[in-house]
């Protein structure tokens, strides 16, 4: 399995490039979710290009691969950009994003018809359970694969997340790593006012998880936490403090940029900020 491993400087540069790619395909599609794509970009860049995830784009179903799931599937703009950069799909495929007859099935939310995608998303709250099932499956097979899943902060308002949190703790599934893209902003409102998820660390600790908290835009911190050895028996949750729309000043922290594509003018303005 190939294992691209960039240094911190290269990762930061790649993250900028991926932000531009994600905005480009959302702009060209005329719809999509820029805010949550930009908040998750640094985390996904570290996973895919920092030597964390073991994967082979030429053999995307390798049973011994590590798994990555984007449970907050609306951030597909960044997911497909990462899959193209990693070689699962071609960069030319990205022009099909959210368009009918898409050759690689680049739907608004991911589906396993696209190489590199494990399960369909689009309904929040399911990904942690699915990731847990995968982690149980690879453990049964005797593989040392790890399964990573990115959740949204608003997403953990879904009750099923906490069912899964209890399950992974019960089964001591320590090859499961959940990463919360804690960007503080959901579609309707800031997450705190929509329905507060704090105290977030105490919640996960009380559910029996190994809790880590980092700045989700500090590449060195991200790499450091991802390189930590697994807890001997607990599943791990990484609470990554992030900024919705990170990198584009007029999008940062704004609910308005949850699910709207930029105009041509805004897109060009954004690109200048991401150089």
């Amino acid at each position, binding site marked *: 399995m190939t294992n691209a491993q960039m240094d911190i400087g290269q990762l930061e540069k790649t993250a900028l490039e991926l932000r531009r790619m994600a905005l480009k395909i959302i702009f060209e599609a005329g719809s999509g979710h820029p805010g949550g794509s930009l908040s998750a970009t640094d985390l996904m860049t570290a996973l895919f290009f920092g030597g964390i995830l073991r994967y082979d784009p030429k053999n995307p179903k390798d*049973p011994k691969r590590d798994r990555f799931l984007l449970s907050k599937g609306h951030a597909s703009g960044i997911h497909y950009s990462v899959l193209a950069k990693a070689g699962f799909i071609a960069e030319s495929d990205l022009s099909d994003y959210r368009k009918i007859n898409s050759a690689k099935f680049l739907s608004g939310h991911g*589906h*396993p018809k696209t190489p590199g995608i*494990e*399960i*369909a*998303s*689009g*309904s929040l*709250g*399911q*990904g942690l*359970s*699915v*990731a*847990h*099932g*995968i*982690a*149980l*499956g*690879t453990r*049964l*097979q005797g593989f040392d694969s790890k399964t990573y899943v990115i959740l949204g902060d608003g997403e953990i308002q879904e*009750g*099923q997340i906490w*069912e*899964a949190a*209890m*399950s992974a703790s*019960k*089964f001591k599934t320590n090859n499961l790593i959940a990463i919360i893209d804690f960007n503080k902003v959901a579609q309707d409102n800031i997450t705190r006012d929509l329905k507060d998820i704090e105290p977030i660390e105490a919640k996960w600790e009380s559910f029996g998880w190994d809790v880590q908290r980092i700045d989700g835009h500090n590449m060195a911190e991200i790499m450091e936490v991802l390189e930590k050895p697994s807890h001997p028996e607990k599943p791990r949750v990484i609470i990554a403090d992030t900024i919705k729309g990170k990198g584009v000043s007029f999008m940062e922290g704004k609910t308005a940029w949850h699910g709207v594509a930029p105009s041509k003018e805004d897109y060009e303005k954004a690109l200048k900020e991401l150089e």
Partner: protein
Amino acid sequence: MKDAATRDAYGETLMDIGSNTDIVVLDSGVSDSTRTKKFGQKFPKRFFNMGIAEADMVCTAAGLATTGKIPFATSFACFLLGRTMDQVLVSVAYSNTNVKLVGTHCGLAVGEDGPSAQMIVDIAYTRAIPNMIVVQPADWVETAQATQALVDHEGPAYFRLGRPKVKAIFDSSYKFEIGKGRVVKQGSDLVIFATGSMVQESLVAMEELAKENINVTLVNISTLKPIDRDIILELVPCHGALVTAEDHNIIGGLGDAVGEVLLDNQIAVPFGRVAVKDQFAETGTGPQLYEKYGLSHNHIVKTVKDTLNKK
């Protein structure tokens, strides 16, 4: 072959075929009732009791399936499906994961626990889901073979099982095949298509009808989707009248599945339906509910006669 509940046959079969290490079983805290408990005792590493959390169970099963396992996610039908429409649609059906959803305690046959425990809309719901097949066996022999057939079938499936004991219908020469109906008894005046517990109910009705020289054909329809179009198109025209019988709401179940085939083929013959009449029932024993809510052999007799009168 023996008289037993289909849930018992399922539990025993899982034990018999459990040496296949691809098989994993999940339950949501009711494993003594669904009969998966014994599998859990025999194969503890491949048994996952997810607690009372059906949504989590269904998606965990989907995850396991992506690693090549064949998960049987089991619970009472009313909770297994009632609580997980979204999970079944996205993580199982749309993702096309190889998950077997096994719902026990279906229909009014459940009895005293009341309407919140009597699942009567599951066939309608699962039939309407793309990629999903729907199977309801009639007895022990068929349940055992269908369980193995679901292991061999690649793709999502719903397996509908019952709580009370049912009579043996088939002997060991029976060969279950997904998508195939089977003539249980040959007659000539009318054809009954029955599923699940209504196969034994129909046999009782047919004895009574025979006393009045009414001889009907009985077909067991254990695969509700894909429905066996061939057997319907072969037998309905030559009998000239039909009745369907199911422990399920009258909307969306076996009656509609058979009716769709007739409609598609412009076949108009007298057609009676024995099913729950779009209402919630109440508490009471299974046989009492079958009598009061129109599912008993007495109702089948009456429906057959009424239908024949329209011939």
